[in-house]
């Protein structure tokens, strides 16, 4: 999983939706743990939006855009959700 554009906000552990609403950040962390997903957040997009290492929820890590392109090169399919 690679998080780009505003998608990097998914990694922000400070996000606090109302308790009766879904918590997407928490769900990502849980999904990542359950399926051993590599949850990669683009460093340039993250820094532009104030998402830093210390803000990352469990299971997320920051890396470069090269990770996204490399996955496109190596995977049989690349699927984009959202923008």
């Amino acid at each position, binding site marked *: 999983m690679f998080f*780009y*554009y505003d998608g990097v906000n998914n990694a922000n552990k400070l996000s606090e939706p109302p308790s009766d609403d879904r918590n997407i950040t928490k769900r990502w962390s849980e999904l990542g743990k359950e399926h051993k997903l590599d949850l990669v957040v683009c*460093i*340039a*997009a993250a820094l*532009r939006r104030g998402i830093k290492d210390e803000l990352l929820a469990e299971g997320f890590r*920051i*890396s*470069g*855009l*090269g*990770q*996204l*392109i*490399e996955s*496109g*090169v*190596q995977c049989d399919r*690349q699927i*984009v959700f959202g*923008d």
Partner: protein
Amino acid sequence: MPGIDEPDSESGVIKKFMFVNRKAPYGTIYALEVLEMVLISAAFEQDVHLAFVDDGVYQIKKGQDTKSIEMKSFLPTYRALEGYDVEKLYVEKESLDERGLTADDLVVPVEVIDRSAMAELINSMDVVLSG
């Protein structure tokens, strides 16, 4: 963080990447962040294609002046793409027509193709990323 953005020269796999630009250059960050993906994929020596559709055609329109919005213009970056061997630029004819533009209004040489040809082109790609 080791190995960031270092091209994987070992694999030698070259795929057809297409970056579809749909948004005006300023007001949202999409155009700039797509451009960042384009530059990285060029560094990975991939077969890079760019498409400009809808308001995305404004990204490469001549005569932009960003001074009054206090943003750095990234128009020169499109001109520099040639130096990264990124030369496959396609613009959708209908998008130009709808905005009263022609290829002469653009800062870089492009191939103007119609909507159905654009759809076919996108369909022929290995990886399509848009913004």
